[in-house]
């Protein structure tokens, strides 16, 4: 019933304009058959009685006025199945691992409806990533969207992989399924991810969508939506806890800008479209948990900040939507620290909900991490911030001019980077190890400077008292 039209009137960038059609739905899927017999896919961006604008995912090269345009009468959908796990798909959702076609159990609209805020469940389950700067200082919880803000040439991929390998909710025995969406990354980077997934056996519980650097840019606009649709299906229909890694959002936003420019839209900041906030929100907001459903979606998007500038529109708008950010620092990377996470500008907004010991609805105590977690992390933050400030002063007046107190803080900052931030690529620290490590370092600060720590925690966990408590019975025994 769908008719083909040979009424292309204009082609501009990724857009094709078609005249005199039947009424075409906004968002409708389109196939374009070229004169050489090949086909391309697209989507309706603007539909009126006289003219229809189509955005072509594979790019418009090779299309001329002779190409025929067919409107498929439905919006873009993805066939989903549990069998997607273990598969590698293209950025448009077609298998590229040589395996069979995926037999869909359902066909879902890729746009994804907004979760009713009233149906959402509060994220509160601590995810242990084994990385101290995340677990101890910027805790990730199930259902959160916590991006890595990085720069080109920094080891964000390694960090993402380490998280994907090590992430677990303790005591639950549940594993994460991983949905990985690559947007415009290089073949080499994609290989790096695939090798690691294969090496660790993670591929069996992963779905990979790959849009590589030489794939059409416009396709990048649908790749993350396909990935999130697959993730939602696995989470909400098959009870999986899904970790979605999206990389690199910067390439996604570039594609968005390209479309905006082709449509001659009024540009917002730095040429990016004014609706980029809403558009990014449509991706990020698909993280979450829903009441009464077992699965969850946790997002770990990666974006590289152009010029390491956190105020650039891409990290800026992302930061307003995501629940915090992990900032990777070039300075620490140069010092040879891995993972080079700068905790000061990093943040996890859902941290408080996922740490410490909490009362549940029945008044029972639930141990999420440890009672002293928040206080220790706050104290370490304050100490590290103060120590780093002092580095500037030392550069001018020298260490000798510092007071005793200041010198301790300076040392604290150095030790913090060396002992807490630095860790091995396969080092999986438990939260207790991380917290004890922080206490060891805090033990070097003058006790009266520990203003954020309750007396009872100091007596229980401070190395000085802890050692005493451990030694006291022994001492008694010895005197007898």
């Amino acid at each position, binding site marked *: 019933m769908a008719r083909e039209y040979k009424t292309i009137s204009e082609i501009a960038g990724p857009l094709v304009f078609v005249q005199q059609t039947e009424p075409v739905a*906004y968002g409708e899927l389109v196939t374009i058959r070229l004169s050489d017999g090949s086909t391309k896919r697209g989507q309706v961006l*603007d539909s*009126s009685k006289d003219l229809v604008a189509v955005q072509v995912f594979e790019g418009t090269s090779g299309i001329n006025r002779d190409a025929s345009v067919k409107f498929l009468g439905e919006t873009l959908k993805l066939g989903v199945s549990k069998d997607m796990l273990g598969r590698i798909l293209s950025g448009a959702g077609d298998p590229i691992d040589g395996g069979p076609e995926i037999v869909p159990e359902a066909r879902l609209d890729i746009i994804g*409806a907004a979760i*009713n*805020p009233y149906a959402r469940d509060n994220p509160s389950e601590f995810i242990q990533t084994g990385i101290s700067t995340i677990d101890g200082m910027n805790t990730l919880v199930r259902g959160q969207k916590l991006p890595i803000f990085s720069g080109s040439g920094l080891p964000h991929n390694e960090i993402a992989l380490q998280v994907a390998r090590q992430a677990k909710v303790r005591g639950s025995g549940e594993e994460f399924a991983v949905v990985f969406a690559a947007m415009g990354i290089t073949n080499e980077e994609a290989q790096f991810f695939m090798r690691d997934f294969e090496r660790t056996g993670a591929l069996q519980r992963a779905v990979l969508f790959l849009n590589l650097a030489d794939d059409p840019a416009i396709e990048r606009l649908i790749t993350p939506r396909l990935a999130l649709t697959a993730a939602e299906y696995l989470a909400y229909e098959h009870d999986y806890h899904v970790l979605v890694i999206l990389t690199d959002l910067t390439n996604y936003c570039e594609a968005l800008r390209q479309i905006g420019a082709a449509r001659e839209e009024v540009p917002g900041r730095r040429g990016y479209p004014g609706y980029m906030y809403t558009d990014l929100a449509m991706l990020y907001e698909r993280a979450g948990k829903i009441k009464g459903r077992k699965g969850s979606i946790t997002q770990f998007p990666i974006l590289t900040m152009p010029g390491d500038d956190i105020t650039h529109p891409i990290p800026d708008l992302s930061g*307003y939507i995501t629940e915090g950010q992990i900032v990777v620092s070039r300075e620490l990377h140069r010092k040879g620290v891995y993972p080079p996470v700068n905790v000061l500008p990093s943040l996890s907004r859902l941290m408080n909900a996922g740490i410490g010991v909490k009362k549940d609805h029945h008044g029972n105590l639930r141990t999420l991490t440890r009672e002293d977690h928040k206080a220790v992390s706050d104290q370490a933050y304050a100490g590290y*911030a103060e120590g780093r400030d002092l580095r500037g002063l030392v550069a001018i007046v020298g260490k000798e001019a510092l007071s005793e107190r200041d010198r301790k803080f300076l040392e604290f900052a150095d030790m913090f980077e060396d002992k807490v931030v630095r860790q091995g690529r396969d080092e999986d620290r438990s939260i207790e190890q991380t917290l004890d490590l922080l206490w060891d370092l805090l033990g070097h600060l003058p006790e009266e400077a520990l203003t954020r720590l309750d007396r009872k925690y100091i007596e229980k966990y401070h190395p000085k008292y802890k050692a005493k408590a451990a030694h006291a019975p022994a001492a008694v025994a010895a005197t007898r």
Partner: protein
Amino acid sequence: MAMQVTRERTSGKGTIYRISGPVVTAQGINSRMYDVVFVGKEQLMGEVIEIQGDKTIVQVYEDTSGVRPGEPVVETGRPLVVELGPGLLTSIYDGIQRPLVVLKDKMGDFITRGVQAPGLDHAKKWDFKPTVKKGDAVQPGTILGEVQETPTIVHRVMVPPDAKPSKVRDIKAGKFTIDEVIGTLDDGTELRMMHKWPVRVPRPNEEKLRPEIPLITGQRILDGLFPVAKGGTAAIPGPFGSGKTVTQQTLAKWSDAEIVVYIGCGERGNEMTEVLTEFPELKDPKTGGPLMNRTVLIANTSNMPVAAREASVYTGITIAEYYRDMGYDVSLMADSTSRWAEAMREISSRLEEMPGEEGYPAYLAAKLAEFYERAGRVKTLSGKFGSVTVIGAVSPPGGDFNEPVTQNTLRIVKVFWALDAKLAQRRHFPSINWLNSYSLYQDSLNDWFAKNVGQEFLDLRAWAMDALQQEAELQDIVQLVGSDSLPAEQQVTLEVTRMLREIFLQQNAFHPIDTFAPLERQLKILRAIKRYEVLSKEALARGVPVRTIGSVKSKSELGKARFEQDFDKAYEVVMSGMEQEFKVMEAA
């Protein structure tokens, strides 16, 4: 002209000409600007925003994917209205007053489209007690009677503001739904507990009053240094992660307004869920009942339709005005007005309007001004006093305040609470920068503070601001030479301002006691720090070394006293301890 009258009676029908995202162009209808129309086979709700020749441009509040040219457009002949009556409190709405609870029942866990849901429960019966009787003269806005809406709030049913002055013909007590007639006026007007009001039209009042009563927030830096008046306007701009939302939520919880309207405009879903789960469990400090009993929530998250986001602030402020008209003090939190402005920008760019600064429409400033102007403390039509305080969060791109939304907002609002990412990074919360923030209400509120807290509070405030200003200057020097090279007196000043920052300005929103500091406690903390300064300077004069003064234990004790249930007792202990410590100090 005759045709137009007909049109209003029987709603007309047209067809869709064009669809571009949330903007739909219709042909063959003749609606007025801002009238509501229903678009497409699924009857998606929209609002007329432009008329060009025979084409009418509509912004649609729901997703338009799958809608085709040629589908029907139905006129309603009325503007976007909200339903006002008992049942608003404790509700959670989307941007166009559809209850999220009802939407969940009808659509499931995800927000789909084409579902109509009235703002109020039309089946529920409320116990109405008239306060007027037959023959009483009534005006628009006159209070007709009362309904116990929630255990803590009495809902006052009013003559709609657009009715005419008349006399009560009859009025009944008893249980009614909001649609049932509870009485009539002499001119035949039927009275009900509910009336509708267009969201884009401010509700009328008798007169606006000077803002001279502070909105007490229990936040030391706000009440103490930068107070906002009841009926005033305040803006909280700050980069992401600087604590806008926590500050907004803290204000919603603790400010001494009787009604809270909280608009989550284009913000995070999980954050709204946190509000939705936390507010019903939180205890209202004044009544002991759940905080939700005096709250209306509007949640239009960032991925919900953008046109409904544009409408959400109007829905919210109309509800706020309605409670103001009953004689209540209402505070309205809009988080975030930047997202609202962006919704305007998005619609404007779809309309291909000539852009102003950074792509925002040229009417941005006017729209912001109109919105904030709906705040105010008023004498209502019924002669009561009520207020709407508007506190708007602003999310400037890159944290740079030099952008159109922040700048246009600052031109209107009287209080500016500048959030500072640097403070947030060192976990100084609330991370409001004391050097950049200001309140233009200080002078008009001075009388109230002098009368209710004491002149001492005002003097201490001036002293604290002065000390903090000095600190900023001294810090420049310290950055170069270290604090040990400063003269002893200035070292004491730095110690005093450190106390001001750490003990007075910092406040833990998550600590059960510290989250709310009554004015009395704020005064005592300031007094204690001032006393420390006086004692330190005396000690210096006696020849006591700075190091000895700096090691006074009562400093940290004072910090801890903030967390004590019995603050007054802890305070007495700290103060006598401090006096003692200084007394025994000896000259070097």
